[in-house]
């Protein structure tokens, strides 16, 4: 056992031992551990297998940047892939590595390593072509995916979302973030401070640096306590900012405390300003076999020792190009761990820095170029950077530090500029932005003093922007640490470039990068896409710059010119469940009319009828089929009395001096000549000449109209009208009020409708002279104030009785009760459809297709030629100049009278036609003719009336005769009766 728990120290609770299972084996750890620290603590080094070659891999980092060990939880907390470093240990936790079968330790697929030479970057584009890709695909898919597919969550509240507003959002509670928070909190601003760790302090948590005379973590604790006590500050642990959206909407993902049923909480934060203090991530160095278990980030070796009292190994060697590992070495020595050696590629290191690692052998101007060990690291091979004899050092841990990558993901997402800093050998934010300030490690401040100063200055600047005065605040004095770095991306001339990994999660090697370049994929975006480097779950937090460095080295270019790939949201993977809260049709409830309970009590089959209205489709009785039921309902309307719930139709009350003229503008026909209390059917076009809507409008006075629209288009029509009034014709005096849901109706229809209405009781004179077709009357029906309109969508005598919504249920029940002797039959939208097709009335959803205009629908009469202008007139005129044959509305009677299901079928002249001449817009079983009748749009259709056409119902062409588009009461005597 090489890793082990140190006898003292760490922030774990040694009194609480937690048992957990990993890859089927039982281990134990302590409260306060992460899965990663517990695995290392129990001496497990080979924790997982790699993606492509199934090489043994261990844990590399101690934070969200983990580029190697991803696991999935099983059991109650089943999850997709998570970095082991982010899983907090709980009692009974069960987890598996996402790679390695039957286990990570014994992975049968490891034989793939033998085929590695055949699998360079993008090898799959060059092979698997014969005989065809689909033969190989299923196997490859099974090999490739990581965690198993998720199963449905047990509880709906497993994942949640919250919204928040604040003056200042501080992302990261390390030294810079805390210093900034202190300033803005004291200034009295509303502050939200978030940090990805379980505890605030960031780098101070495992560093021995002192601030203001006390240990850094003590200072951090002090500031945190102060912030926690302030009423204007809210603190969030275990929280990552994952996206920066429009207008500074910052998205957060919070992993609540273990044991809480909520797995993740998404926060949408509207911050007026954001301070980005997300710190930086150490990056590894690339050389041959740099992936053996035991090879880690130097800072991670220290973090595990200091925070979790876990010695990652017994013999530790560091490999670096910068100063930070020397401090690491000292911090390890302070807790009794020994560092066997430091390999540094630089020729000289300052005396101060060297003395930090007193007692450690330092190999200056040397590089690690290979490692050995079977299932874990056993030693490294080093050589002078100028070449020369190599030597071996035995070790079981190699801590790497190739420099530090500021966490600029969020900054870059906001399209803010970044630049390459030569002195830090990394990318840093370039300048300040209005809504976001970067401070500390993520701004490239490598000195503690500098980081804290940046935090304080940023806080002060924001306070000033809010117009607040501040008392002078002196920054605490901090230990200073030199930081110098010499850019170094990978060992020189690696002979085993195929085993030098630049992206551990996707098994991308230096040779892959070189291959991409030699094949011409040398743009950084090409390198990424060709090799998939940086596209894995860790999004290349640790590795991306090494990829750019390798490309720059290979091309002999300046790394600043190579550039980086775009950072895209999210910065860390986020559960979908906390999203999907805005909008979404499925979340909006149905609308129903006040008589929906009655419909349901009558066994109605309820349908969605557009604009989220749910209304009855048909009312089956005693085991009737839908066909039988619809025929029964249709017969009732044609021969007796039906009742229909027409409430959802869009209704608008238009009022104002210019209303009549406005209707002349928006409808194709004339409304200004309409008499009071009379109605007219109108067709409304867009300015592109396409049909927008249709409906009947009644005139209620000189300046007042009641407009009805189709159910589905009510909102579109309203927006169209309002835009015209506000933008195009602002001088017109027209006010529009939507009254759809204020007035609801019971529509009674059928030859007995007049008698029935008399029976129901009304003070309105119902005689045909006094109350003709297309008129509206105000009065009382069944004692209720009502507006009764004579419109008809069925072709029968019909009264639409409108009452205020609160009275509808009462009216409806009264109508049903008083009309029993007429055998009043409720009819649904299915029956309405049959009746309107028989009558040849057009319906927007069926007969309006593409460029069809009123002339095509046989309603040329509706296109007023008297008017100078109306919306759509010009476009229709232009369109009609096209030589393309027009498709016109016709009736169709199939030779086979039983052929009903032909809706949508193309119309052709011969079965081998390559082009359709039209199509069947609607087809129903006619109760009047006891056979199928259909409507269709047919090229030059009106001229073809009396002839025939083929309905191409898939492989089955059916002959049909072309008729007038009306199968019932063509002169309209019944609806006018």
């Amino acid at each position, binding site marked *: 056992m090489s890793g082990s728990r140190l006898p003292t120290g760490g922030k774990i609770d040694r009194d609480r031992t937690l048992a957990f299972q990993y890859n089927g084996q039982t281990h134990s750890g302590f409260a306060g551990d992460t899965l990663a620290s517990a695995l290392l603590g129990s001496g497990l080094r080979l924790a997982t297998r790699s993606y492509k070659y199934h090489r043994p891999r261990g844990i590399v980092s101690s934070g969200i940047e983990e580029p190697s060990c991803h696991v999935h939880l099983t059991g109650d907390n089943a999850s997709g892939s998570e970095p082991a470093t982010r899983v907090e240990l709980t009692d009974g936790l069960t987890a598996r590595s996402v790679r390695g079968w039957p286990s990570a330790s014994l992975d049968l697929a490891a034989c793939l390593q033998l085929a590695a030479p055949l699998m360079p970057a993008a090898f799959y584009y*060059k092979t698997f072509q014969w005989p065809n890709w689909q033969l190989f*695909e299923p196997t490859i898919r099974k090999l490739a995916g*990581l965690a198993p597919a998720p199963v449905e969550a047990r509880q709906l509240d497993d994942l949640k979302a919250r919204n928040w507003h604040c003056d200042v959002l501080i992302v990261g509670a390390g030294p810079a973030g805390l210093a900034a928070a202190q300033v803005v909190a004291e200034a009295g601003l509303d502050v939200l401070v978030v940090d990805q760790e379980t505890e605030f302090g960031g780098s101070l948590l495992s560093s021995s640096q002192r601030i203001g005379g006390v240990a850094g973590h003590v200072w951090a604790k002090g500031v945190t306590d102060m912030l926690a006590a302030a009423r204007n500050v809210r603190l969030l642990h275990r929280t990552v900012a994952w996206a920066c*959206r429009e207008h500074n909407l910052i998205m957060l993902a919070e992993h609540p405390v273990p044991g809480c049923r909520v797995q993740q909480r998404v926060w949408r934060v509207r911050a007026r300003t954001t301070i980005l203090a997300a710190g930086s991530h150490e990056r590894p160095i690339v050389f041959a076999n740099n992936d053996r278990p035991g090879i880690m980030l130097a800072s991670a070796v220290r973090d595990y020792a200091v925070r979790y009292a876990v010695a990652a190994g017994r013999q530790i060697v560091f490999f670096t190009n910068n100063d930070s590992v020397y401090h690491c070495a000292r911090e390890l020595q302070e807790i009794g761990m020994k560092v066997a050696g430091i390999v540094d590629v630089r020729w000289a290191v300052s005396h101060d820095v060297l003395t930090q690692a007193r007692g450690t052998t330092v190999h200056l101007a040397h590089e690690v170029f290979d490692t050995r060990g079977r299932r874990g690291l056993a030693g490294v091979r080093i050589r002078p950077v100028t070449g020369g004899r190599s030597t071996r050092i035995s070790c079981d841990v190699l801590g790497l530090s190739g420099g530090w990558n500021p966490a600029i993901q969020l900054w870059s997402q906001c399209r803010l500029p970044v630049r390459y800093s030569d002195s830090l050998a990394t990318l840093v934010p370039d300048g300040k932005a209005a809504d976001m300030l970067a401070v500390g490690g993520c701004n490239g401040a490598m000195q503690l003093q500098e980081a804290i100063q940046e935090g304080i200055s940023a806080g002060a600047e924001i306070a000033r922007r809010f117009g607040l005065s501040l008392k002078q605040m002196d920054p605490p004095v901090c230990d200073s640490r030199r930081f110098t770095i010499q850019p170094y991306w990978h060992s020189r001339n690696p002979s085993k470039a195929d085993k030098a990994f630049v992206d551990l999660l996707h098994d991308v090697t230096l040779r892959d990068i070189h291959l991409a370049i030699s094949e011409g994929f040398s743009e950084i975006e090409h390198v990424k896409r060709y090799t998939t480097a940086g596209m894995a779950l860790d999004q290349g937090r640790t590795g991306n710059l090494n990829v750019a460095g390798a490309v720059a080295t290979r091309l002999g270019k300046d790394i600043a010119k190579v550039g980086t790939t775009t950072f895209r949201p999210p910065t860390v993977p986020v559960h979908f469940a906390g999203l999907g809260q805005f909008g*979404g049709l499925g979340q909006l409830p149905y609308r129903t009319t006040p008589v929906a309970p009655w419909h349901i009590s009558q066994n109605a089959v309820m349908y969605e009828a557009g604009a989220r209205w749910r209304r009855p489709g048909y009312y089956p009785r005693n085991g009737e089929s839908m066909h039988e039921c619809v025929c029964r309902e249709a017969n009732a309307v044609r021969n007796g009395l039906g009742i229909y719930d027409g409430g959802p139709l869009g209704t608008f009350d238009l009022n104002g001096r210019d209303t009549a003229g406005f209707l002349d503008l928006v409808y194709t026909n004339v409304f200004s000549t309409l008499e009071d209390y009379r109605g007219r059917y109108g067709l409304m076009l867009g300015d592109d000449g396409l049909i927008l809507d249709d409906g009947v409008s009644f005139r209620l006075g000189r300046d007042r109209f009641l407009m009805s629209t189709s159910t589905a288009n009510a909102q579109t029509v309203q927006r169209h009208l309002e835009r015209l009034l506000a933008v195009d014709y602002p001088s017109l005096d027209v006010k529009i009020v939507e009254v759809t849901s204020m007035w609801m109706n019971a529509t009674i229809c059928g030859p007995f409708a007049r008698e029935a209405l008399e029976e129901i009781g009304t003070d309105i004179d119902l005689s045909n002279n006094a109350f003709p077709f297309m008129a509206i009357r105000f009065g009382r029906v069944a004692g209720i104030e009502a507006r009764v309109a004579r419109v008809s969508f069925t072709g029968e005598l019909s009264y639409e009785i409108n009452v205020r919504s609160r009275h509808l249920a009462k009216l409806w029940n009264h109508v049903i009760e008083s009309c029993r002797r007429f055998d009043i039959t409720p009819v649904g939208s299915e029956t309405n459809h049959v009746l309107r097709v028989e009558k040849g009335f057009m319906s927007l959803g069926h007969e309006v297709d593409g460029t069809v205009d009123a002339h095509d629908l046989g309603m040329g009469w509706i296109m007023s030629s008297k008017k100078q202008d109306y919306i759509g007139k010009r476009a229709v005129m232009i369109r009609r100049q096209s030589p393309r044959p027009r498709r016109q509305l016709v009736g169709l009677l199939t030779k086979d009278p039983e052929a009903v299901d032909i809706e949508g079928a193309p119309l052709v002249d011969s079965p081998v036609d390559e082009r359709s001449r039209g199509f069947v817009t609607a087809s129903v079983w006619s109760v009047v003719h006891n056979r199928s009748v259909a409507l269709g749009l047919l090229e030059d259709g009106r001229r073809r009336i009396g002839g025939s056409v083929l309905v191409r119902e898939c492989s089955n062409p059916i002959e049909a005769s072309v008729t007038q588009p009306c199968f019932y009461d063509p002169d309209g005597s019944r609806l006018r009766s």
Partner: protein
Amino acid sequence: MNMDRYSFWTLARNAVSGHRKLRPAWRRHQPKSKYDVLIVGAGGHGLATAYYLASRFGGRNIAVLERGWVGGGNVARNTVTVRSNYLRDESIPFFARSVRMFGELSRELNYNLMHSRRTMIDIVQTSPKLRELKRRMKIMDMHGSSYEEISVSEVRRRIPALTGAREGSRLPIIAGMVHKDAAVNRHDAVAWAYARAADSLGVEIHQNTEVTSLVVDSSGRISGVETKFGTISARKVALAVSGHTFMLARTAGLGLPLRTFNLTAFVSEPIKPVVDVVVNCPDLGCYFSQTARGELIIGGHPDPGLSYRRDIKQNVFEGTVSGLLELFPSFGRLKLLRQWGGHLDIAPDGSPIIDRTSVGGLFVTAGWWGGYKAIPAGGLCLAKLIATGEHHRLASSFTLARFDRLDYIMEAGTTTVV
């Protein structure tokens, strides 16, 4: 063609040399001052056009000018779905041909595009949508394309992860439609394969060469383009720049009937195979498939407002996610891995434009609302037009002149964009 043959044996042979002997997929050149044909935009359509010009019509002295990198346009940002379930006589044969060409492309270009005829299933939740899709079914049958209705239980059998939208829910599933010809493939590979093949035929591809404006001579004909390397002359210039078509055409004084939209797509973390078909949910506005790597690649509705961002507004994004979770509640436990936005330009009727323009010598391929699937046929048709001056039979309706008479080929608003 002058290029390495790719096969398992090439790989094996090259393994010995550590793959050091493979030639670049395409070469780098200094831009010349004059070409016969300039194609602006090295995305899918631009590269395909160049390839077909050179391979089918013997075109020589052709250059493709690209602002960024090869394949960096919408071909890098889409949901890789290839399908032909359209509504119009003018559209179906074109898209069906494109789908067929895709199927043969791996062989033709000697590049594994990972083309996989996965089949698409539309999950239908409203009767108007079902009516419209069945109308497609019947007209597609006429054109020899397959599209079939299946029952709800069959939909659920073929997509076991579909556990939402049950009977009694807000929008229960009422039917499914199966489009057998639908396929997915690897988008980057499509761009690279065309680039490699075009290069081998002598087409020059210039990356990092942004065309800042078009140059029109005194007779109103195109004479070349402006770049940072100066003017590059050509008698024929073709624009294949998607969301930037409108702005670039404007530099030649040309107004085009196009609107630019931002469309989102995103991928989940990779998981083991969970769905084998392409899933389209037109009523809730989302669609997805699973890549060979295991990621779910998911697309949704566009943001109605104009945007040139590479991300999408949170509310638009969440609208798509909520649709997805409505049908696939278990995906709530899956994580979002990457997200991006692409810019597409849409003509008033939703159909494409492959045509010459009123500026002599200037050609345009635009209005690609889900144009990924159209890359092979779109490239072929534009190439024919540039080379011969005559429209390809399949694209003869996709003209600009149709807008002079408002002769729309209405495909807009009839389905979710895929």
